[in-house]
């Protein structure tokens, strides 16, 4: 059965080459996670500063602002879906997309029309394939998102938000992305960006202690005007960075299990190939012995 042996050997070779590729991708992803994590860490002080400042204006002043007040009858909501440009990352993209579908369903049930903004080629492909509409897409730099991209997205959504609803504006803005919990866990998360729910980082004033009296330059309304787009931008940037880090972690894990599976396949096929070779040898021996016996038999008679 040399044909079977050849087939096994071909499979082993193919598994080996695939393993080389997945191993390389695993290593690349592993080296990129570190960088992506550093970027998340580097952007944290800014995000923290922005959040603290926004909380301060929102807490210590009673200013009514378009961006913080809840609309009375929300009829349209926007979702920003953050995915990656490339696949091969396990359930990374489908998790985010599934979460956004859930959120869309929820919003529709509340009687809101849903419009989408997409980040990453995978989300765009998903929508195109289903012939669904979306407003804008950002692709190409999901691996190392830049501040400029975050700024563009923030500008686009804030602009849509301040537009009156009957002119195509939206009343709510949500973002769905993969949060980087650890190297092993990345959970898809949804977050309402607007109207703001500033709850994080607000320190409850200690009882008996007077609230610090904030001075605003020029005044609290204008400070909020300037602050909120910055806040939104920083939240979006944070989401993009976390999504990038998550993507690399997911790729690394997916590629690791692919390499492991390739190893398993190679082992199995090697066993089968050895078996086939042994069989072949056994058969050849028995053929020779049988032939020799037959020849010996003819000579004696």
């Amino acid at each position, binding site marked *: 059965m040399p044909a079977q042996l050849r087939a096994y050997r071909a499979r082993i070779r193919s598994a080996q080459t695939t393993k080389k590729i997945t191993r390389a991708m695993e290593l690349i992803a592993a080296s990129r996670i570190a960088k992506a994590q550093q970027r998340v860490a580097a*952007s944290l002080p800014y995000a923290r500063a922005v959040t603290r400042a926004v909380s*301060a204006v929102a807490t210590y002043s009673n200013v009514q602002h378009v961006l913080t007040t809840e609309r009375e009858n929300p009829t349209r909501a926007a979702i920003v879906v953050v995915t990656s440009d490339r696949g091969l990352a396990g359930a990374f993209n489908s998790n985010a997309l599934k979460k956004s579908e859930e959120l869309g369903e929820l919003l529709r049930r509340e009687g809101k029309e849903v419009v989408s903004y997409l980040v990453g080629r995978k989300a765009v492909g998903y929508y195109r394939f289903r012939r669904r509409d979306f407003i804008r897409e950002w692709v190409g730099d999901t691996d190392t998102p830049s501040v400029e991209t975050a700024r563009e997205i923030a500008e686009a959504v804030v602009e849509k938000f301040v537009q009156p609803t009957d002119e195509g504006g939206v009343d709510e803005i949500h973002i769905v992305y993969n949060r980087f919990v650890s190297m092993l866990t990345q959970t898809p998360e949804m977050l309402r960006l607007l109207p703001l729910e500033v709850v994080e980082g607000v320190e409850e004033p200690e009882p008996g202690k007077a609230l610090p009296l*904030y001075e605003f*330059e020029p005044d609290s309304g204008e400070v909020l005007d300037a*602050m909120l787009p910055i806040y939104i931008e920083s939240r979006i940037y944070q989401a993009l960075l976390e999504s990038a880090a998550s993507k690399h972690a997911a790729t690394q894990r997916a590629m690791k299990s692919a390499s492991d599976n390739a190893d398993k396949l190679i082992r199995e096929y090697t066993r089968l190939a050895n078996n086939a070779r042994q069989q072949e040898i056994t058969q050849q021996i028995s053929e020779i012995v049988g032939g020799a016996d037959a020849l010996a038999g003819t000579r004696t008679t």
Partner: protein
Amino acid sequence: MADLTVTVVSADEQVWSGQANMVVARTAVGEIGLLAGHQPLLGVLAAGEVRITASDGGRIVVNAEDGFVSMENDTVTIAARSASLVR
């Protein structure tokens, strides 16, 4: 005199942090100087220089744009979308 704890951050990194005697920043309505003990403040930055006099006597100049300055409990935070150390 008490010192200020100053942090200067831009969107993607921490530009400078340390102890300082005085911070001068340019806000939308004019320059403002901050010393220890100043009341809590939140101001919108106008494009321009932020000058910091460090506790060790060094002078730090940062170009900041598009951000804000906040002061609370002798902690000054300057957050700007783009900020770079001039010297």
